[in-house]
């Protein structure tokens, strides 16, 4: 018994080490360069750390203005803490997501143990342990969890807090300790303040929690219920007020799938629910989950889905047994999470979108593990042979994924990330002392954000495409940074004097020109 327990702990420790390695190894280099949202978070985190203000000078704000919308605060404050330790580096920006992505693997283990532990005698403790270990293993190596943990994605941080909230709530149901209840609710509240997609998911989750508590509430013990309800209401007031303001709704307006201005009211009433349905089912699409992902370079590896192909048979078996045991607590809860996960994302376009529906990955991973353990435990040699066969394919596909990630991905998705912007700002900063003015074509719309983070002392003018050197600057030495122009470009010939100094090329295989530096 003791040996078995030690063995379990050893397995768990190996899984956690593997998860940490897969998330931290070269995290500041692959994906190469921070993308624009990461840079925006990083700059706000930096100003919060040093001045206690955001980039617009607001003192410790709850919502951060950025690119015409508002960012949630949790990722920014976490990045501030990370920067206090690691300095103003790319590693510091990605550290919170990588760390919480690793811890997610551990919390998933605890959550699954707690969840299946409530199933009575239907599942043996040995099976529960196996499902929990396998779930954490799947979470450690799944393409989507690795991908999300290696970028500074708010969605990944939110996923951790959501799971933590779920686990603490299950602990409360088991122990009835009020501390667990309040910790759980706090964690759910942190989730909603982390990523926009949870603005609908968390109220539904909290609704379920309170409904469950109310249903099982004893006459003598009503105090925790009402104080918890009051706590949640108070904590959510700022978000509710913000959500109904124009600023709070800006992100929804920007990404909404319901923007057909040519439709009249009745047509909208007829078509919009069906657009929603179409988007909603797209999140359960097998190609999206297992073959090609959502197609965004930042979220997906080429030739891979969000999960491995070899997980599909286990998922089908897991789903089947979940439906067969649909009256159990774990089946109801998994089904609930599975169904609500895309509920916000379906309002937006494009759909499917991995980030906005990241929560869906949790029930899917648990079901895969459940299916795998159930299949293995059937005392049939054929089934065991099938599991072993899938196992061999699994080793190959997992190795294939890492090949694609470490060899192909950096060469393929450079434009999706921002290492070229980093180079642009570094080069411009290096050349700044030699020039009186620096002008940058406004096609480099991200330049101000990158400047803010990498060198806020760099001064430049962001100019329109048809810009000409003004006569007032006739005697000034100007550095003009633009997208690809040839020497024969008639537009550029009209400038007074030009010499091409330098090119910045994409880091991908095409090595095509990202920016050209001209001296005017």
């Amino acid at each position, binding site marked *: 018994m003791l040996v078995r327990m030690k063995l379990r702990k050893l397995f768990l420790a190996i899984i956690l080490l593997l998860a940490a390695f897969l998330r931290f190894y070269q995290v500041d280099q692959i994906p190469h360069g921070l993308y624009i949202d990461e840079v925006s978070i990083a700059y706000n985190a930096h100003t919060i750390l040093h001045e206690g203000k955001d980039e617009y000078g607001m003192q410790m704000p709850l919502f951060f203005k950025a690119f015409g919308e508002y960012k949630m605060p949790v990722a920014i404050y976490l990045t501030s803490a990370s920067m206090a330790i690691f300095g103003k580096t790319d590693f510091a920006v990605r550290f919170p997501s990588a760390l919480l992505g690793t811890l997610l693997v551990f919390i998933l283990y605890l959550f699954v143990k707690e969840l299946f532990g409530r199933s009575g005698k239907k599942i043996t403790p040995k099976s529960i342990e196996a499902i929990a270990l396998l779930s954490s293993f799947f979470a450690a190596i799944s393409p989507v969890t690795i991908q999300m943990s290696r970028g500074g994605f708010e969605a990944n941080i939110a996923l951790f807090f959501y799971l933590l909230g779920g686990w603490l709530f299950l602990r409360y149901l088991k122990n009835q300790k009020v501390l667990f209840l309040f910790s759980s609710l706090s964690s759910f509240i942190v989730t909603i303040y982390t990523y926009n997609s949870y603005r609908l998911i968390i109220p539904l989750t909290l609704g379920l929690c309170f409904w469950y508590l109310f249903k099982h509430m004893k006459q003598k013990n009503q105090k925790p219920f009402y104080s918890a309800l009051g706590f949640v209401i108070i904590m959510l007031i700022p978000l509710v007020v913000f959500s109904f303001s124009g600023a709070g709704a800006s992100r929804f307006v920007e990404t909404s799938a319901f923007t057909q201005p040519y439709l009249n009211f009745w047509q909208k009433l007829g*078509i919009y629910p*069906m*657009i929603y349905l*179409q988007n909603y*089912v797209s999140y359960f699409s*097998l190609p999206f989950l297992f073959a090609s992902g959502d197609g965004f370079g930042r979220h997906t590896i080429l030739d891979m889905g969000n999960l491995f192909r070899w997980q599909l048979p286990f998922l089908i078996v897991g789903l089947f047994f979940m*439906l*067969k045991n649909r009256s159990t607590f774990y089946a109801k809860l998994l089904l609930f999470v599975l169904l609500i996960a895309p509920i916000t994302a379906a309002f937006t376009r494009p759909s499917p979108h991995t980030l906005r529906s990241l929560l869906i990955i949790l029930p899917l991973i648990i079901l895969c593990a459940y299916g795998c353990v159930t299949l293995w435990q059937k005392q049939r040699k054929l089934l065991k042979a099938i599991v072993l066969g899938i196992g061999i394919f699994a080793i190959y596909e997992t190795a294939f994924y890492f090949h694609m990630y470490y060899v192909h991905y950096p*060469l393929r998705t450079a434009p999706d990330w921002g290492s070229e912007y980093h180079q642009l700002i570094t080069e411009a900063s290096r050349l700044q002392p030699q020039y009186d003015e620096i002008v940058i074509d406004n096609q480099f719309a991200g330049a101000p954000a990158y400047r803010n983070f990498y060198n806020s002392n760099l001064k430049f003018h962001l100019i329109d495409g048809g810009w000409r050197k003004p006569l007032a600057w006739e005697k000034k030495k100007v550095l003009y940074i633009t997208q690809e122009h040839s020497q024969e470009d008639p537009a550029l010939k009209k400038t007074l004097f030009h010499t091409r100094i330098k090119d910045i090329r994409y880091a991908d295989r095409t090595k095509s020109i990202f920016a050209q530096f001209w001296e005017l």
Partner: protein
Amino acid sequence: MKNKLLLLIILLGELFTFSFWVPCAKVLDKFHFTTYDLQLRLIERIHYDQFVPLWETRVFHNKFAGALFDLIRSYVQFWDLGFLINTISLVGAVGVGVMFYHFCTQKKSRITGVLFTLVLLLPFVEIFNVSQIPPSIRVGIFILPLICWSLMGCWHLSKKKRGTWIIFVLMLVSVWYEVSIASAHLLCPRP
């Protein structure tokens, strides 16, 4: 009698949904497997293998593994909920799921066994793109057994508590969907 009438209405609904596929000129390439595409893709992938040992390139970019991945990708397209909704309607897609569940839990008859095999294997007719047959007929070869399968599923569902109501609601949504945003033409462009 009530259930039979319900099945008849579902059948009409499914055929109506499938009728959007009849004027189809070709099914999108993502449903097909061709060795030519595979070859092109492999060549493209191999060019990214810079500073990588040759054995690694051979292990990860070979025709066997590429064909397996391509076949899986094409095959799962046929079980995509969006595809099923656009071919046999929402109620039909739910019927398919119910019947799979029923098939795995109940005693199997020979007919359901044969139908199960057909439903699982017939997508390969389209995947391997037997081009002498017009696309609508080719899709029909896969869809008709699927319609039978889904009708059996709906039959089982209708016998459950509140099953008839669930089917009724699904049918309404199916019709609503087809009338408002049917998108079969996106999967199967017109001539």
